[in-house]
């Protein structure tokens, strides 16, 4: 399949089930809401080293937030429920509770409950106040600045982690420019996050390593500098590859996000140095979710 001169390889992204939740973080200003959101989703690129994958989903307008202030929606994914139950209160406690003027609310209902105030209330040392109104419980934790308000808990959802595609380009600048275009388009899709720095990962990995205890290592088949030494997946004109990884609340969300990203890259076309779109997988036997590039772009 060739679109605008870009080859869409007959490949697929292999993704895994993850459990995730959404939080709405608000503050007196949009700036501080975003600071809290960015901080609490920091160092959360990959479950392998961070215990969770998290990112900003979207900016939430005042009219939609639980307290009428500017807000940001974040998604957090972990490999299992217990993992999620551990990281969510921890991250809110360290990054949102501490962030000026912030408040933190449930961003989804249903599924297993993930504690917010239920776990954080102890910080208030007995001065915490719970209020149950409209069937929902909120907690108020007196802090030096005033009060930190948060919901009792949030819901959770069985989502998909590890959707991805690779951009094969003729130079480093062209690969990055294409990746940026993809990220911009993909951030408009609800229900997904791109957990890596700026949404882009330059160091895609393969499973396993020659070293004991390494679960993942550099994906030498796509490393342009190694093409003389190992088997390569790169055509001769490709000099740089960027990957975009996608976690989402559902298969469809990840598929839609993948499509939006590839479309943006394809729009740039061969003229802007994009040679091909590929995807990372493990042969199809490890992850239950397969995002077939050609089907998505059909």
């Amino acid at each position, binding site marked *: 399949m060739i679109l605008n001169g870009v080859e869409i390889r007959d490949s697929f992204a292999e993704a895994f089930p993850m459990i995730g939740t959404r939080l709405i973080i608000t503050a007196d200003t949009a700036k501080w809401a975003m600071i809290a959101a960015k901080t609490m989703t920091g160092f959360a690129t990959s479950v392998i080293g961070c215990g969770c994958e998290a990112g900003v989903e979207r900016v939430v307008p005042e009219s939609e937030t639980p*307290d009428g202030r500017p807000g940001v929606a974040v998604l957090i994914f972990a490999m299992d429920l217990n993992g999620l139950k551990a990281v969510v209160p921890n991250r809110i406690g360290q990054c949102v509770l501490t962030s000026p003027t912030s408040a933190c609310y449930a961003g989804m209902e249903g599924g297993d409950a993930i504690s917010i105030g239920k776990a954080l209330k102890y910080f208030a040392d007995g001065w915490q106040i*719970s209020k149950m109104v409209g069937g929902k419980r909120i907690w108020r934790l007196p802090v030096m600045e005033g009060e930190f308000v948060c919901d009792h808990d949030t819901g959770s959802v069985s989502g998909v982690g590890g959707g991805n595609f690779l951009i094969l380009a003729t130079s480093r600048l062209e690969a990055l420019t294409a990746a940026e275009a993809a990220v911009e388009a993909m951030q408009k899709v609800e229900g997904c996050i791109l957990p890596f720095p700026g949404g882009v990962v330059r160091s895609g990995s393969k499973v396993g390593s020659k070293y004991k205890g390494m679960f993942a290592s550099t994906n030498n088949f796509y490393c342009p500098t190694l093409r003389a030494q190992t088997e390569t997946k790169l055509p001769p004109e490709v000099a740089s590859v960027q990957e975009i990884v996608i976690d989402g609340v559902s298969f469809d969300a990840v598929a839609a996000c993948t499509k939006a990203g590839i479309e943006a890259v394809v729009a740039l076309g061969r003229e802007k140095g994009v040679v091909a779109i590929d995807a990372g997988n493990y042969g199809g036997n490890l992850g239950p979710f397969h995002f077939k590039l050609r089907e998505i772009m059909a």
Partner: protein
Amino acid sequence: MSGLTLTPRGAFDARVDFAGVLPGVADVARLPIGYGGCRIALGELFEVAGADDGRVTIEGGSALLDSVGAGLADGEIVVKGDVGAGLGRGMTGGMISVKGSAGAYAGSEITGGKIAIGGDVGERLAAAGDASRRGMSGGVIVVGGSAGSRAAERLRGGVVMIEGDAGEGAATDLIAGTLVVAGRLGPNAGRGMKRGTLLLRSADGLSSGFSEAGEHDLVMLRVLARRSHEIATFLGAGVTKAQRYAGDLYSGGKGEALIVPR
């Protein structure tokens, strides 16, 4: 949707115990109800018309009509007049609206649902009944008029909104939950209050165990206003500040009264 209509055949000579008359009950006309010291068929006191579709309307009420909607779980009861004591006592869900006034213990120990009373209510609105240590624990009560003494006594959850005045000793021993008084507060309010929130227009009437903590812009008010229509109505548009009083400090309580002048 007209539902079942019960029309009194005349004025009552004795107190009527309406407990058990709920939407979905079979053969309402023959349902035994208390009348004075004895039990008689409902049909002897009321003309029954229509079919039950989850809504029961009492055409014309009486201050002698006790325990209307007691234990209601779902459906709707509408009273186009007054009711006596124990309105909705122990109800868990559904909706009761009374166009007139209600007697003592209205909404006592309810755990859910909504009660709207157009007129005044007697003493111990939403309070704990005999042999109980806990009053209303969930749901919403709105009183269009004023409430008698000890409104929300031992309240432990839900929202009670009094649009008029509250009598003496409102929120006595209140455990948790929210009491909103849009009118004047009677003396000695909040004595023994453990936790919970009073939303008031003025601190006049608060018992002496309350102490002022200054004016604050509370994010919580913004949340409550969006989760409770009643609280939003009380606060008015854009109000996010309140004068905070903590109490009842005499009994080690951690409750609060938030004063939001009109």
